[in-house]
């Protein structure tokens, strides 16, 4: 929720609503029929989104293709930095809600591309995976040294 804005309705019994009521009570607003309205404004509402589709029609994303997209992101930023505003883009953040199991945390080629992104002044924000709590459940590329890995606070809503 960086560049977008949404108003979400949750059941009053939701753990999410309970958490908001505890830590940011002014953000939760009673709605009708036992529902609570949670307005979500992006932290950077004026930022723009550039979508790189790597998941095909069957919802399978090849690792090699994801790596291609990661390189493309770096390439677009490098073009922008070199003064080519026609072809380049001022990409400062890269969001990846995608990943797979790995036994080579930090050494996987995807992980190393995450480090390359960070080296090019792009913050890689990557989901930690839907598994766990258990060992070896943080997926690659969230397992990269340079990843800002995001995990769930609730089992149900990861």
């Amino acid at each position, binding site marked *: 929720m960086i560049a977008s804005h949404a*108003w979400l309705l949750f*059941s009053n019994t939701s753990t999410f609503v309970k958490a908001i009521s505890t830590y940011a009570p002014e953000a939760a607003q009673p709605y009708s029929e036992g529902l609570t309205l949670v307005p979500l404004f992006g932290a950077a509402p*004026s930022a723009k989104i550039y*979508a790189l589709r790597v998941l*095909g029609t069957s*919802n*399978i994303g090849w690792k090699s293709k994801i*790596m291609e*997209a990661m390189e493309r992101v770096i390439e677009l930023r490098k073009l922008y930095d070199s003064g080519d505003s026609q072809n380049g883009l001022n990409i400062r953040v890269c969001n990846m809600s995608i990943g797979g199991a790995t036994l080579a945390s930090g050494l996987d080629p995807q992980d190393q591309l995450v480090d390359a992104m960070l080296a090019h002044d792009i913050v890689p924000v990557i989901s930690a995976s839907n598994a766990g709590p258990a060992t070896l459940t943080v997926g690659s590329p969230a397992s990269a040294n340079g990843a800002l890995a995001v995990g769930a606070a609730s089992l149900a809503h990861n």
Partner: protein
Amino acid sequence: MFHLRQIRLSCFVPLLAVLAGVAGAQTEVSERVIVRTAKPYKKLVAAIQARGGVVTNQYRYVDAIAATILRASLSAIGSAPAVASVEKDLGIRVPTTVDLSGLGPLGAAAQAEVAADSVRTLTASEIAGATPAAYSVNNTLMAVEPLHNAGLQGQGIIVAVIDSGIRPGFPHINDTVIGGEDLSAMGAGTRISATTDMGRSCPA
């Protein structure tokens, strides 16, 4: 009896042909792989191509290439001096539902939580009518408000989203998406406008 034997024979002959076909096809099976190898890639690319393989990506920012290699020549490519390792190119599937059944009592509690929730997003007209008095939960927790008050709202910043594309007209991200590329269909470099449906119903 004669007729039965004839029937049996007529069954066996096509079966043998099918088996021979399968055996023949097996030598032609290819594998999608990622090969870890130091730059320059020229020699290895030539070696893969000479063995009937196709190099699909030569990465710039990591020492690796992606290729489709005949299964029969995998060991030869893998043992080439420049090759550090050969790994299978994984097809990463997006989970449609999260399986909580393996978590025992924890999973049961989580399932109950899902059942109790009725999360839904507001429609465009509801959004237009909503006047949230407070700031959003995420920004409150991150203390973003002083930055916003100072005029810092992410102007000129672009967030790249590597996922399943964008459904145009989705109310939450309207006017936010500037376009993208569909690497799953046409490879990197072809710009797609923000109004083009990339083909999937879920916004990234």
